[in-house]
Each structure stands twice: as C-alpha cells, then as structure tokens.
C-alpha cells in the first residue's frame, strides 16, 4: 500500500517539475531563482514538501515500532524481560551492582530513550495553467506558511507526549528490575556475574601481533619505515620503485630534453597568461613586439613545439630502446635533435615577435626555414628510433613503439605537405591548413602520447595492458578516421561541401579509437584503483585519460553542422584546445615525467609540491575552460539571433576574466612544476648519513687503517 502511495506523490512531483521547467524554458533570459520565477518557487515548495514528507514517514516508522514494543510487552511475561536485562549488563553496571550487593542497597537504574510518531497527510497538487501564475503561487505559499508551521509544531508536541509516555514505561520497568536485583541473593549467580565482569574487563596489550622482538625481514619486503608518529596532513605516497639502471649518458640527454621542455612550458604559458590578460586590459602595453596578434602564435607554438614536442621526444628516447630491450642506436643523433628543435622554437619566437610569419593558419605561423629545422630534427630522431627497433632483442614490437614511431613519421609528412613552398594557391591553402592543424594535434601529439601511456601506465599500475588487440584497433582506426577530419574547422566555408561532410563523418568515426583506447586504459586500472591514493604519478594519468575521453568526445560534438552554428569562431574552440592539449597531453606528459625523472636521477620530487602542482593545475584548467565554454555558447546564440556584435564582446568580459584567473592558476602550477624538476634533477639530494658513513668506511678500508671485516 505504502509504496504505491509514495510512487503517486513522486510521480505528481515529477510531472509538476517537468511542466514548470518546460514553461520556464520558453521564457529565456530570466533568472532561475528570482522571486518572480515560477520554477524557482515551485522547486522551493517541492523541496519543503519533501522534507515534511520525510519527517512524516520517519514519525510513522517510529510509531509502528512503539506499538510493536507495547504489544510485545503486554504478551511477554515480565520476568523474562528482567533476565534479559541482566544478561545485557555491561562491565560498569556490573561493578555497580556487585558493590551494591555487598551493601545490600539498591539504587534506581535509569535508561533514557525517545520515540514518537506522526503520520502527516501529503499535499497533492496537480499541474494546471493556473499554477503557473506567480500571483496564485504566492497566495498558495502565504497559505502554506501557517499550515506548515502548525504541522511542525504538532510534530514537536507529539514527540514530547510520546517521550513522556516512554519515560513512564521505563520507570516502571526499571523499578521492577531494581526490586528483583534487591531480592537476588543467589551465590552462584553472583559468581557468574563476577566471571562475566572479568571477561568484559579483558583488554589487549597491543603487542599481540608485533611481539617484542624487532621484525626479521629476510626478503627485503619492508620499505619506507618511519619512526615518526606525527599526524599526516599530506597522504604519504610511495616512492618510485627502482627500475633497471639507465645508461647515464642517455639519462643526461633525456634530462636535457625534459629540462628545455620545462623552460618552454614556463615561457610559453607566461606569454599565454599575458595574452589572456590583454582580453581584460587591452591597453596594458602599446609595443609592436608584444601586441596580441604577434604574441598569440608565440604562445601556441612555444607550448606545441617547445614544451610538448621536446618532452615527448625525451620520453621517446627512454621508451623506444627500453621496450626494444636494447640500447639507443646513437646518442649523438639525440643531441642533434635536441639542438635543432630548440633552435627552431627560439628562432620561430623571435621571427613571430618581429612580425615575420607564414601568413595566417594556426600552428603554421613559423616560416618554413624555421620549421625545416624542426623537421630535420624529427628525421634524425626517426632514423635513430628505427635503427634502435631494428636491433631489438624481442621478437615483437611493443605497441608503444607502433604509436611513437608512426607519430614521428606522420609529423614529418604533415610538415612536408604543409610547408613545401611551391604550391597551395587560393583555397588550396585553407584545405591544407585544415589538414595540417588537425593532424599536428592528432597524429603527432595524441598518437605519440598514447604510445607513451601504453608504456608508463601498465608500468605504474604494475600489471599488463588490458587488451593488446584494443590497442591495435585504436591504432589503425585512429589513422583511418583522424586523417580525414581536418576540414571540420572550415564547415560552411567555401571549401568543397563533400570535403566538409567527409570531415564530419570522420569526426564521428573518432568514437572508435577513442572508446577503444579509453576502455583499454580504464580496464587496465580495474581492481587497481587503490593504487591511486598511494601514487603521485597515477592521478596525473587518471586526469589525462578522463580528459582523453571527454575532450575527444567534445571534439566530435563540435564537428556537427548544427553545433558549428553556435560554437564556430567563438572561444569554445579555445576552451576545447586547452582541454585537449592541456588536459590530455600536458597531464599525461607530467605523469610520465614524474615517473621517469626519479628513475634517471634517483631523486624524488617533494610530494607536497607535486600535490600542489596537480591540484592547482587541475583547478586552473577547470576555471579556464568551463566559464569560457559557457560564455562562448551564449555568444554564439547572440550572433545567431542577430544581436549587435559589440554586445557579444561586452557579454564575454566576465568569462574572459575567469579565463585569466584560471590561466593564472595554471601558470602558477608550472612554477611549482619547474621547482619539482629542479628538485628531481639539479638540486643536491638531502645528505644520506648512512651513505656517507659507508663511503668513509670504504675509503678507510682502502687506506688500510681499518682491518677488513671479513678475515
């Protein structure tokens, strides 16, 4: 009976809410919780009714319990009750009783309890047009207020009445028990109670498991023993596990890659931060070299080719030989690449600021001689990687190397196609631009980082990848679909309509590699979620993978013709590119860097600053992207409805401010990251007394001043 009655109320409420929101949805622009908002008032009313309903239900439940106990009390012989009470006496009560027994004097025992009930009538309301009138609603609320207060008062009154009744019942019962205890003089019973007291008073001495002898650890299982018993304000994470040693010369090269990458991250995002501030304060400077149009590509290109590319290449130099189970073919080539790529970013930055660029086209702003340096660096690396793989000692090629080497190959192809200086007249430039800008993101950064993740994620979780086949499926489907989606940046433009359609279909096809990749990574995580809390690298992987799914799906959603009407040309694209290039690529890069650098240097980053880095970067990203997406959506709608353009600029101001705030957080986290890099590489590690003592001892031993311990 009850569930049915409940269901009806819930249904009525749901119908009411939906109808109200529907009406509300037709009158856009009014605030949801304004005093004249019908939906807001109704929500408030329904919430209030829900609270009353809940309290009525709980009252009803309590009343039922009371009635049941009353019935039981009348049926059961009362002495049985008394015996049950005696069995339930606790240690403290036993002490009191035994003492009393000695003095043959009984005091009253008092138990206190509460309980009451009430069944309130639920208010049933039906949606009518009348109910949508603010005046009617206000009247109903005015009537409801005294009624509700009355109901509340009644509930309190009833509680007290029932409470008094309970107290009376318990007083009677405790009187009965006291009389019984007073008359009880059975020696055997007293003895039993004494034993019970001894049993209850038993407590552990906390040495049962540990023993008093120091633990013997023959297999070296005990690590990170801490003798400090302070309160942990920060969760202590596991130190990175020891890995097979890396050739120090290779380690040095990788550290240079990662170090220069960190510099470009700091530089690029400082520029980005400044460019973001210009949206809020356009007159902050009037210098040609620092003007918005010149600095924007400096920011994007520095974080693309400087930060992400250099960091990826560094990680590639670690992974490719490792999964081939051999050493890197040539270290020298690694250094050439490092120098060439860094030179490209330095020269490119100076050129852009001086006003020398490639004439439009995002991420294609460096002129071709600069990009030629970059491509040459990639060619040298490609030869190096392929030679390393050619002399692998394993039969198969691990999937990471599929992704990484293919990414390098594709990046070279993309740069060649886009930068060859003898074609692309007219719209050809735009067709190639669509291809180039999206392949740069998808076939260079994303493909490479998937390869990196396929190596480091299983390693950090200490388990194999969930499915090798899914990885292969994702690989081929990524090539098939990603390659064709570039022109979705030019939907409705004058490039061929069929090409736009192909791009949109390809964007939908991206669901295949993205879902298979995401499934693979998350299934690798399965049953290993507990490791998240104890690791300082896994949270970075997790964020990267969550954004891999959401960011890529968002990309598909943005590609449709209808969503293009709203979002194209707005800052939604900017938010999306930060969700992907920052949320996916950069977070995964950090995850991998925090994994690999301690292995190379043997120095751990301070865990507290890693935590600060993680949280500030994540919060910054959310502050950056969410307001921007919200504002951009409304800006698109304003354009659609024909509002004056300048109105949409004014409208965006608060969202641009939020973007600057989020950007500042992100930027601050990069300083912390740079500090962590310093601590992991350049800083002298905290002196280890044990190590120093051993060194001293061995020196003395060599000098012969100490006799050999083994004789």
């Amino acid at each position: 009976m009850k569930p049915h009655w409940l269901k009806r109320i819930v249904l009525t409420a749901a119908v009411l809410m939906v109808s109200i929101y529907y009406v509300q949805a037709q009158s856009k622009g009014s605030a949801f919780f304004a005093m004249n908002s019908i939906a807001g008032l109704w929500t408030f009313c329904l919430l209030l009714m829900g609270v009353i309903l809940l309290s009525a239900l709980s009252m009803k439940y309590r009343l039922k319990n009371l009635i049941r106990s009353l019935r039981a009390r009348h049926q059961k012989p009362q002495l049985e009750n008394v015996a049950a009470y005696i069995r339930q006496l606790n240690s403290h009560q036993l002490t009191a009783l035994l003492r009393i027994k000695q003095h043959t004097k009984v005091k009253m025992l008092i138990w206190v309890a509460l309980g009451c009930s009430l069944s309130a009538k639920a208010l049933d309301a039906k949606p009518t047009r009348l109910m949508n009138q603010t005046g009617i609603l206000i009247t109903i609320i005015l009537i409801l207020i005294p009624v509700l207060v009355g109901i509340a008062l009644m509930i309190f009154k009833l509680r007290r009445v029932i409470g008094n009744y309970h107290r009376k019942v318990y007083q009677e019962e405790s009187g009965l028990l006291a009389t019984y205890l007073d008359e009880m003089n059975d020696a055997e019973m007293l003895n039993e109670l004494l034993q019970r007291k001894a049993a209850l008073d038993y407590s552990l001495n906390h040495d049962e498991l540990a023993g008093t002898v120091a633990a013997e650890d023959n297999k070296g299982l005990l690590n990170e023993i801490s003798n400090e018993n302070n309160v942990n304000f920060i969760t202590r994470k596991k130190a990175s596990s020891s890995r097979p040693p890396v050739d120090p010369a290779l380690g040095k090269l990788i550290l240079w890659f990662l170090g220069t990458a960190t510099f470009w991250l700091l530089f690029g995002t400082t520029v980005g931060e400044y460019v973001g501030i210009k949206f809020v304060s356009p007159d902050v400077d009037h210098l040609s070299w620092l003007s918005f149009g010149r600095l924007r590509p400096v920011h994007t290109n520095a974080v693309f080719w400087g930060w992400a590319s250099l960091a990826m290449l560094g990680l590639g130099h670690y992974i490719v030989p490792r999964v081939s189970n051999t050493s890197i073919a040539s270290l020298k080539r690694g250094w050439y690449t490092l120098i060439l790529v860094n030179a490209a970013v330095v020269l490119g930055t100076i050129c852009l600021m001086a006003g020398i660029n490639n004439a439009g086209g995002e991420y294609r702003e460096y002129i071709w001689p600069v990009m030629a340096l970059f491509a040459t660096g990639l060619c040298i690396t490609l030869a190096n990687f392929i030679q390393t793989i050619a002399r692998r000692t394993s039969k198969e090629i691990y999937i990471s190397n599929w992704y990484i080497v293919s990414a390098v190959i594709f990046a070279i192809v993309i740069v060649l196609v886009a930068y060859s200086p003898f074609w692309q007249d007219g719209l050809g430039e735009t067709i190639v631009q669509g291809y180039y800008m999206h392949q740069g993101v998808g076939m260079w950064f994303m493909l490479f980082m998937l390869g990196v993740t396929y190596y480091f994620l299983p390693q950090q979780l200490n388990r194999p990848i969930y499915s090798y086949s899914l990885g292969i499926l994702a690989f081929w489907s990524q090539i098939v679909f990603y390659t064709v989606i570039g022109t979705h940046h030019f939907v409705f433009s004058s490039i061929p309509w069929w090409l736009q359609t192909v791009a949109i279909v390809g964007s939908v096809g991206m669901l295949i590699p993205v879902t298979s990749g995401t499934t693979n990574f998350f299934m690798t995580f399965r049953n290993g979620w507990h490791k998240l809390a104890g690791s300082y690298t896994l949270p970075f992987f997790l964020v990267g993978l969550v954004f891999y799914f959401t960011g890529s799906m968002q990309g598909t959603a943005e590609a449709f013709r209808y969503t293009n009407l709203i979002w194209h040309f707005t800052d939604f694209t900017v938010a999306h590119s930060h969700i992907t290039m920052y949320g996916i690529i950069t977070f995964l890069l950090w995850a991998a860097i925090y994994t690999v650098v301690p292995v190379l240097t043997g120095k751990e980053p301070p865990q507290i600053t890693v935590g600060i880095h993680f949280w500030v970067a994540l919060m910054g990203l959310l502050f950056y992207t969410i307001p921007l997406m919200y504002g951009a959506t409304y800006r698109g709608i304003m354009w659609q409805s024909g509002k004056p353009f300048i109105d949409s600029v004014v409208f965006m101001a608060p969202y641009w401010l939020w973007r600057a705030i989020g950007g500042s957080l992100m930027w601050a986290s990069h300083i912390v990251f740079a500090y962590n890099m310093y601590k992991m590489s350049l800083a002298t590690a905290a002196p280890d007394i044990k190590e120093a003592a051993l060194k001293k001892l061995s020196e003395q031993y060599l000098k012969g001043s100490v006799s050999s311990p083994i004789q």
Partner: protein
Amino acid sequence: MELFDNHKTLYSTALGLFLILTLGVAILPAISNEQNNAPLPDAPALSEDAVKGKALFIANGCVACHTQQVRNVEMDKIWGERPGIAADYADDHRTDLLRNTATLMGTERTGPDLTNVGKRQPSRDWQLVHLFNPRTVVEQSIMPAYTWLFDIKDSVQEGDVVVNVPEAFLASPHQKVVASREALQLVAYLQSLKQVKLPDEKSPLFLYKREKPADNNGGAPATLNGAELYANNCQSCHQPNGEGLKGAFPPLKGSKIVLNDDPELMVDIIMNGYSGRVQEGFGEMPAVGTLNKLSAGEIAAIMNHERSSWGNNSRKVTEEEVKTIMDKVKK
C-alpha cells in the same frame, strides 16, 4: 603475425595508409581547387598600398581575431551580401619566398569579420582613429591599440595626415597624431576589402534561415528594432550616446538635420553620404544606406530611433515617406 613483428612492413603500411588518405583529403582537393578556379571578372587588383597593407595585416597577426569568410549561413549575412565562394580567394598566391598564401580566412571571430569592411566602414578617418586606439570610437572594444603606426608631433608639416584623436587619449592637448605611411597602407588594405559581385547575380543561398519572430498582432510585420540597426550601422562613428566624436564625427543629439521636420536631407545623407561639414574638421560620411543595402523600413526605423533618443524629440517618419524620398534622391 608478420605485419606486427616486422618493423619495416609495419611502418610502411602505416605510412602508406596515411599517405593515401593525405592524398585524398588534402593534396588532391587542393590541387583540383587550384586548377579549376579563377578570380571573378569584376575583382579589382589590389593597389600598391593595399598590397603593403596586407603584408602589415599579416605581420601583425590580425587574423588571430578577424576572419575573412562569409559562411553560407543566415547568421553571417551581416558580414556580406552573399556567401563566400572559392573564386573569392582564387587571386591569392604565395605571398613571397618566406610566406605562404594568405587567404586569411581565420578560425576565430573575437572581432568582426572583415570580408566586406571596405564597404561597411569605408571612412578613412574612422579607420585611422580606430587603429590609433579602438577605444576612441568603440568604448567597449578590446582590440589592441596600434599606436606605433602613428607619429606624435608638436607641429604638423605639409602632407601630414592628421588624425583627430580625442584629448583623453593624448599626453598633452597640443600633441598632433600623424598617420605613418604604414598606417595609411593598412587602411588602404582595409578599404579594399569588398565583396565582389557575381557576374550572373546568382549567388549561393544562405542556409539555416532565422525563424521570424512570432507575430502577436496577427499577420502584421514585426516592427524593426531601430536601436539594434543603429548599433550595427551608425554607432561606431556617432557613438551610443549620439554625441559623435569631437573633431571627427558630428553629434546627432540636437542636430538640426536630425530634428528637421522635413526628413529629406536626412534621408539624402544616409543614402548618398555627406561632406558638408568637412571644413569644421569632421570626416566625410560614407553612403551608409546604399553601401549596406538598407531598406526603406530599416532606414525609417533608424531615423525614428535617432529622432527620438538622447533628448531628441521630433516627429516619426513612416516607411512610405522614406521610400518616396529615397526614390527622389537616388543618384
């Protein structure tokens, strides 16, 4: 499997697949577009100054905020009379050895589209003062100020193009702002940006037509919003408060022409432009009504907005009245 265990086969297969797709979606469509495309017959060649102006436009990365493409959707109609077609870009060739072709279509519209800005805002005076600091004419603008394209002088020499910058934007009231050659070239380029008429007058359709606002008064056409039309067509010079800009654009507030009971001169100015107050230092007004293809109803709505705002209080004009004068003053 052989494919999986042999690095040569694996990577050549991946490269082959990628190259085939690259050919299909980038290289061949681009080549086909280059070969089957020619500039429109009416398309004028850029003047020497405009070519240099375009180079400045490129160097300063203006494309980061300004698109140059009118999409074939109704919401883009304010940026051009017709959707852009491939032929509009056919005359764009590689800029020079270092720089690629500059179609400058862009992907962000932080600022307005510039496809047709030469028609929409042809006034050189406005473009110059706006470049010096956009906030002189559009208070809420967030566009950078290009002050380095101007010289600040104490005395003006012959041949100097003086820009009427409001005193608030200068360090001292005696300073004169003179446009440099680069500024004039950049403005020449902006003035050259005009959509070219198609030879057969048949242009592609705008898609996603805007839904007509629901008419509550049974079939009568919805009233045009004069304030919005004013904002789109007039406000950048005459300002939201109707007071214009001292020394550059005359006020409409309290203007004799606007308040005149006979609207003929006002319609004439809107349709044909005006140079009657150049001696007072005001810029020449372009023929906004003709350039922006405003209808009689739209002009009546704008006029009524101007005649009844900022303390102006003149009689309303009707669409028919405006139509008659438009036919009369048509040149």
